[in-house]
């Protein structure tokens, strides 16, 4: 508790207090006496509501946190935090936005905290990448609303942000999926109190709400609510409830509150009208609950359509049937006229079995012939073949034709029917044609696949394709038309080119190349870890409070000096923790001592997480204190033989300032070291 008056280590009374860093350091020995000094000042911080709040005690900004500083809470509310990690900044930013939005929605603190947790999870899963921060925040908030069951709609959020609801919805769905959070389904009953309040029913608010709830439940049972926006249903229920209690609420008023379209509301009302519940009087409704449930309205609409279609089908079928009957009468007459072969019955028998065209009954030459013809039919695409068949055993074919319904693919009879009969057979002809095509496509396929990309032209009608290509006059006309249509775009392009040409002339033409996302740094070539760190720090320049030039010089002497990295080396017995602002100081201590020949305690710096701001310096002792050196070398994380050149050090000594203090410190150390060793 030397509140900065007397140093505990050296007894020196000269304590320097740095307000910016919140440190109290003894200028004699350099030990840090106090860290994180709480400053009693009044600070005005803007809170999420836009108002100001005074903060009377704060820890000064921790601008020099290294990678160990993961806690973003220190110095929160500041904007001017340098060197703070990007992740911490993102989280802080997110938290601020969540509070801002949440307050507008009147969410309580618990909800906001939960939302912030969701946000943290999202950030750690990199879901914020490529998405607007506001969208992610809104999605987190809506997720909280859903899980808590607050009567907030996605529409409200989109109203606040002026963003398309579906865009927000997409982000929300993704977030819910990635975080494996199952948002419970929204219940329209949740919205009733909110909307009822907005419609200002006064004293009867509660009664109207209850009526509306009952109506909603009825709607649910009548299957009106599946797949519908809950707000639309609420609107309809409230409107009816209001009327039931003698409140004159127009459709327009309800719409404004509920945020649906007028036509939607009317539609819901009509659907409700269709249910049997609508026939009850008000009193009856309050008392009775009808048992039967209705189908969803879209289902009934669909059913109606189906019925109409079926009717049409039935009608057309009947027509076909009649025609079929007529043709079959025709056939029968002709058959009886020409029928002379008793064995034909055998053919029938064979055909009544399923698809027995392949079966060859021995001693039935007709069948075999049929087989051959069938195969031929399968192989040829030519229609003339059908005529051949027709000319041959027309009678038999016709008989077989009657059984066309029983047989399936690869059947000749339908083909003949088409030549004989009217409409219905045309359909069957169509079938066979496509069947042929299918068969031939099967043959085509393997050939094409084995080819090396050559276009197989079979089946492609060239003449038809030729029709797709315009001749010259047509092309000209088309070109003109297109030019007229796209005149605006072409004009824009011309202007752009003219602009570029002008700029080129003037020499100020800037090539707007697509922005490269990251600065490409050259990979650091270094032989030792220390060098690599030094080079990296040179490039990065993390802190403004370190004189890099000096550090670099130090490093050039050949010792390792980690400036801000975590050097988790174990504390050997030889270590003494030093904190320095300028590591040079300690360096200089070494020099005179070295030259004097005193036994130096090698100092190994360790950076402890709690003493984040303190800098500690390593410089292994290159002097041949063999055991010590080896010990410390073993302990040091950064290995690397270090050449400690006393001569150079002596030169440097003259340049440096701060000699006196350092001298005394090291002397002290030297003395203590023997003790502490």
């Amino acid at each position, binding site marked *: 508790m030397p509140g900065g008056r007397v140093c505990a280590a050296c007894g020196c009374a000269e304590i320097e207090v740095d307000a910016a860093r919140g440190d109290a350091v003894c200028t004699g020995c350099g030990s840090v006496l106090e860290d994180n000094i709480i400053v009693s000042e009044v600070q005005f911080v803007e809170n999420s509501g836009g108002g100001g709040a005074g903060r009377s005690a704060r820890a000064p900004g921790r601008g020099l946190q290294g990678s160990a500083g993961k806690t973003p809470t220190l110095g929160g509310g500041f904007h001017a935090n340098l060197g703070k990690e990007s992740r911490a900044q993102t989280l802080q930013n997110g938290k601020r936005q969540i509070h801002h939005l949440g307050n507008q929605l009147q969410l309580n603190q618990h909800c906001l905290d939960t939302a912030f947790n969701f946000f943290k999870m999202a950030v750690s899963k990199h879901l914020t990448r490529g998405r607007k921060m506001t969208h992610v925040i809104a999605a987190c908030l809506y997720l909280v609303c859903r899980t808590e069951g607050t009567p907030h709609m996605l529409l409200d959020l989109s109203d606040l942000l002026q963003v398309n609801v579906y865009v927000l919805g997409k982000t*929300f769905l993704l977030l819910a999926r990635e975080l494996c959070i199952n948002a419970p389904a929204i219940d329209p009953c949740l919205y009733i109190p909110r909307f009822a309040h907005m419609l200002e029913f006064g004293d009867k608010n509660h009664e109207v709400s209850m009526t509306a709830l009952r109506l909603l439940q009825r709607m649910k049972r009548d299957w009106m609510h599946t797949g519908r*926006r*809950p707000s639309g249903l609420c609107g309809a229920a409230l409107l009816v409830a209001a009327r039931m209690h003698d409140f004159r609420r127009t459709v327009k008023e309800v719409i404004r509150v509920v945020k649906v379209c007028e036509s939607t509301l009317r539609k819901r009302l009509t659907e409700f009208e269709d249910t049997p519940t609508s026939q009850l009087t008000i009193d009856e409704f309050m008392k009775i609950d009808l048992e039967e449930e209705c189908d969803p309205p879209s289902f009934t609409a669909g059913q109606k359509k189906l019925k109409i279609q079926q009717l049409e089908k039935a009608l057309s079928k009947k027509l076909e049937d009649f025609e079929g009957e007529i043709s079959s009468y025709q056939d029968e007459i002709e058959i009886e006229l020409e029928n002379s072969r008793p064995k034909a019955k055998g053919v029938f028998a064979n055909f009544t079995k399923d698809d027995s065209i392949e079966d060859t009954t021995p001693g039935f030459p007709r069948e075999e012939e049929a087989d051959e013809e069938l195969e031929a039919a399968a192989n040829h695409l030519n229609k003339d073949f059908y005529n051949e068949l027709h000319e041959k055993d027309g009678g038999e074919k016709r008989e077989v034709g009657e059984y066309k319904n029983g047989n399936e693919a690869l059947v000749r009879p339908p083909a003949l029917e088409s030549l004989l009969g009217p409409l219905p057979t045309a359909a069957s002809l169509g079938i066979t044609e496509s069947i042929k095509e299918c068969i031939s496509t099967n043959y085509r396929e393997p050939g094409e696949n084995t080819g090396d990309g050559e276009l197989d032209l079979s089946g492609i009608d*060239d003449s038809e394709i030729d029709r797709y290509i315009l001749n010259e006059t047509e092309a000209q006309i*088309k070109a003109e038309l297109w030019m007229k249509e796209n005149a605006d775009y072409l004009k824009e392009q011309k202007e752009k080119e003219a602009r570029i040409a002008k700029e080129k002339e003037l020499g100020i033409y800037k090539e707007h190349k697509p922005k490269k996302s990251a600065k490409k740094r050259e990979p650091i070539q270094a032989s030792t870890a220390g060098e690599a760190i030094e080079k990296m720090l040179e490039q990065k320049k993390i802190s403004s409070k370190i004189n890099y030039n000096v550090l670099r010089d130090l490093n050039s002497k050949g010792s390792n000096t980690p400036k801000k990295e975590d050097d988790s080396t174990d504390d050997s017995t030889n270590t003494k923790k030093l904190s320095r602002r300028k590591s040079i100081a300690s360096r200089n201590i070494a020099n005179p001592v070295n030259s004097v020949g005193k036994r130096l305690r090698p100092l190994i710096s360790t950076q402890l997480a709690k003493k984040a701001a303190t800098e500690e310096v390593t410089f292994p002792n290159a002097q041949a204190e063999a055991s010590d050196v080896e010990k410390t070398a073993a302990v040091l994380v950064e290995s690397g033989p270090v050449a400690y050149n006393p001569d150079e050090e002596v030169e440097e000594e003259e340049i440096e300032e701060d000699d006196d203090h350092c001298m005394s410190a090291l002397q002290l150390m030297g003395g203590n070291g023997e003790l502490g060793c």
Partner: protein
Amino acid sequence: MDADSDVALDILITNVVCVFRTRCHLNLRKIALEGANVIYKRDVGKVLMKLRKPRITATIWSSGKVICTGATSEEEAKFGARRLARSLQKLGFQVIFTDFKVVNVLAVCNMPFEIRLPEFTKSNRPHASYEPELHPAVCYRIKTLRATLQIFSTGSITVTGPNVKAVASAVEQIYPFVFASRK
């Protein structure tokens, strides 16, 4: 029981999307001028060519990649794609028909019963997602088949998947779940 219902259910394929490459650079301007049924979208750099016989629309890029949509079966898609390549050949380009691949198949199927969507969502938690505020159907994703089904309360189901087989098996898979939540 399932097999019977599968037979009774007819799955209508409404759209098949496929891609192929012509392995040669195409001059869009020439196609636009000489084709009878093309729309030239210069701002995005593509040409839309519509065929009548298999009713398909093809999007042609100058790199030679072509996307073909609107076919009603896989065979038709291939047929249409080949016709298209043929017509490009006739226009004078050295077209080679390679890398034909069916990318997406969209099918519609009707269940003979209605479905309770909130109940269905609850019992199929991670796969099904239902946002009545956004869309009236439940979106059910099958990761193994890479298929997505949109299930409506009327019992109609829209399936999209990488090929016809996947679509058929997706419908088979979903049937028991949907049957469990039927009205």
